[in-house]
């Protein structure tokens, strides 16, 4: 599964795209991210988007999903 990263999350991971295998829920992805990149837990918030829509922790991930890590937004 490809995971897109933006803003400070991209800086923390050191790459705009990372790959993870065997992750089947948003909650599992969140745990995996926090283990691999502990600095992500210090952010004000961290949202996960699935197929360009904000997802909840209980949402299931399918292999073909477009998954993105959304640190606190600051547009406008």
């Amino acid at each position, binding site marked *: 599964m490809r995971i897109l990263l933006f803003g400070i999350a991209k800086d923390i991971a050191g790459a705009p795209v990372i790959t993870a295998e065997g992750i089947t829920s948003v909650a599992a992805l969140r745990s995996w991210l926090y283990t691999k990149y502990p600095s992500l837990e210090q952010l*004000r918030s961290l949202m996960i*988007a699935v197929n360009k829509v*904000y997802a909840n922790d209980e949402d299931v991930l399918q292999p073909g999903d477009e998954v*993105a890590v*959304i*640190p606190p937004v*600051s547009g406008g």
Partner: protein
Amino acid sequence: MNKLIKIDSNVTVQQALDFVEGPDCGGVVVFSGNVRNVTKEKKVTRLFFECYEPMALLEMEKIADYTIEEMGVKRIAILHIVGEKQPGEVVVVIAVAAPHRAAAFDACEYAIDTLKETVPIWKKEYFEDGEVWVAAHP
């Protein structure tokens, strides 16, 4: 078309106005957001805006649809830049036309408030001695 949603390297108030104005609406309210030159008493030298464009466009559409379906808006334009900017340059423009001006004010304020909460765009501020992703940390 009753909405104009755009992410580009430059946006102007005029293009938003041109889209929403019409003789069927007595009033147009515009919000233009500019880069400030100072943040927490530190001088900002330049800025960089990054976005998750396909999702940002969808979130901007949602905001526009809500103002049209629920807030009495006839036409709305939501424009946001990406890339590098200098202090004072326009970052975001929201223009709203509605038959009643109170609705136009409410909807324009709703749109900018919601954009700042939900649209995946990130701003990095550069200072003389460093840089920071805005609002990233508590």
